[in-house]
């Protein structure tokens, strides 16, 4: 592999910021927000794997795997909540759920 690490990192950063932009911009749709979070998590995984390749040890890949496990847990709960909230308010717009204001 001849790609320098920082190219990998820049790719990861770009992916991450795309995910962030998705989360920030798609306030009207909670599912798109969750998709943005997935993108960000993938960017993080890419960083881990890149690091693992740089130093030749398995730990980075391992954390990528754990991240995947955690993400699946998170997504299943988050989607269950989306279903629950949609059932209550017939809406997926996050701005509709503002009852916990100060």
């Amino acid at each position, binding site marked *: 592999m001849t790609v320098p690490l920082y190219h990998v990192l820049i790719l990861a950063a770009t992916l991450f910021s795309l995910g962030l932009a998705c989360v*920030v911009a798609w306030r009207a749709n909670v599912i798109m*927000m969750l998709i943005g979070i997935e993108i960000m998590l993938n960017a993080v995984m890419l960083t881990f794997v890149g690091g693992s390749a740089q130093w030749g040890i398995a730990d980075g890949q391992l954390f990528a795997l754990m991240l995947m496990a955690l993400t699946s847990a998170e997504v299943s709960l988050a989607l269950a909540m989306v279903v629950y909230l949609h059932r209550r308010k017939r809406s997926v717009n996050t*701005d509709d759920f503002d009852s916990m204001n*100060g």
Partner: protein
Amino acid sequence: MKIYLSLMLLFPLFGAAISSLFGRKLPRRLVETIACAAVWGSFVCAFLAACTYRAPEKVTLGDWLSAFDLLAPLSLYLDPLSLSLAVMIGFVCGLIHVYSVFYMAKELDYARFFALLNLFVFAMLTLILAENLPLLYLGWEGVGFCSYLLIGFWYTDKRNADAGRKAFITTRVGDTALVIAVAWLFQLTGSLSITQLNGMAFLLPGGVITGIGLLLLVGAMGKSAQVPLMVWLPDAMAGPTPVSAMIHAATMVTAGVYLLARMFPLIGGSATVTAAVAVTGGVTAFYGASCALAQRDLKRVLAFSTISQIGYMMLGVGAGAITAATFHLLVHAFFKALLFLGAGCVISAMHHEQDIFKMGGLRRTLPLTFWCYLAGAACLAGLPFTGGFFSKDSILAALWLKGGGLYRGLYLLALLTALLTAFYSFRMVYLVFCGENGRPHVHAELKAMQWVLIPLALLGLFGGLLNLPDYLGGGFLNGFFARLSGGAAAEASHLEELALQGVASVLALAGLLAAHLRYGGKARAQRLKESALSSSALTMFLLNGWYFDRLYHAILIRPYQALSGVLWRRMDEGVIDDSLDRLAAGLGASGSWLGGWTTGRISVYIFSFAAGGALILGYLAWLTL
């Protein structure tokens, strides 16, 4: 001896404890009985102690303060001075307690009253029996505290509460000086024991003794109502009459004289101090007598007479005649208690009217009170062969014998005061008891109250027997006090003494005559008429106690109030409160402003969170560049 002394103190203390803790639950008769029994038990102990007394004795009851080299055990000292005072206090206070039972028969808050009276007796006994200065100070403050509560006993009336506060604050000025003196003595000698300190007098430099003596004098001024700290005593009349009797006769005001007499071996070495004491006493005696001339309130007349008589005692101490001063103190206690209790009877009979110009005719309706009161007035005036005559005369003789221009001058002032005393005493008697215009109300309690006066009248009249002059066989007290350091006064020849007494008796009789001419018989009606008109400037001057109250108001209270006002409005409210208020308001405003950020919208939170992260990241990148 130990058991007598401890019981003497414990009886009143227990009485006070029982009355204050359970007084409201117990039946009234029981509380009254306990209170009286406590004091009489204390008197019996004092009497038994006197019977078994052989030599000065020091009794230690237990440890109290002991830290490093500061030792102040609960130790009592019994010597002729404290013994004679203890017996007198037990007796007079016992009578006053019995009297109070009848006088306060309609008072609902009797438990508090008797608890305080008992505590008062306890504090005074502690004061006189204390062997070390901290214990004495405990009694000293206890007396001040009880007097404060008792003067303001009817505290719902603001005037009474103010009088109590005035007494407390004024005596506090003196107390401060006393504390400084005690601390100074400890710093100098490392000891607080009175006997040790008195024995160490010769070790201390003269200037230091003068300083300490003057501080003690200021302490005594506050407690004994001497010029210039005497303003509280006339106002202390706001309390119930038995309390006035107690303060004036047996407890409280005599404490200052006692302190000086007690510490005399220490401070007597300084001529400056004795002169200062004597001048204070002389000026106070004259001040009190002159003010008493113009007073209209019966109790205020007696209050000023007390100031004047205490002045005499201070004169005696200043002249180095501890025996004479103590003698006068004892006799004065008897006849002043008598006068106050008699005044209580009169006031009670006159429906709580205290203006002597509105009284009259009580001679026929209250004969017993009249005769006893007359005996008291005769003692006060120093008519020949009464107790007051002998005691006052012994002070005058001591002054005369002391010699020197200052003491001769004070002697003349004291003679003038004696004349005034005789005059105002009988002015009071004539106005209260002669004439016709009274409509007294004789009730059952009054009849009982009168009987209490009889033993006091007898003691007052025959109190002279305690210490007869040498030519009549010599005095008991002289011999008793002879071993007390500073007790033995200079001896006068019989002829000289007779001459001095002759002068004093002539002056007393002259005062009586003057009072008779001005207030007796038909002249009385004339004076009553005049009293309704506006008074002359001199009368007003005397009536208001030389305007000392106003002077203090102008030079002390007004600036203090102004300062307090500034501190209150500017400092407390302006700076401290306002700054806190503003801080609180600012925090509240910023809190609600920040609270506005919690919109409840996840999008805002996420954006803030991401922006914060981006900022940190940007900062790190900027550092790298």
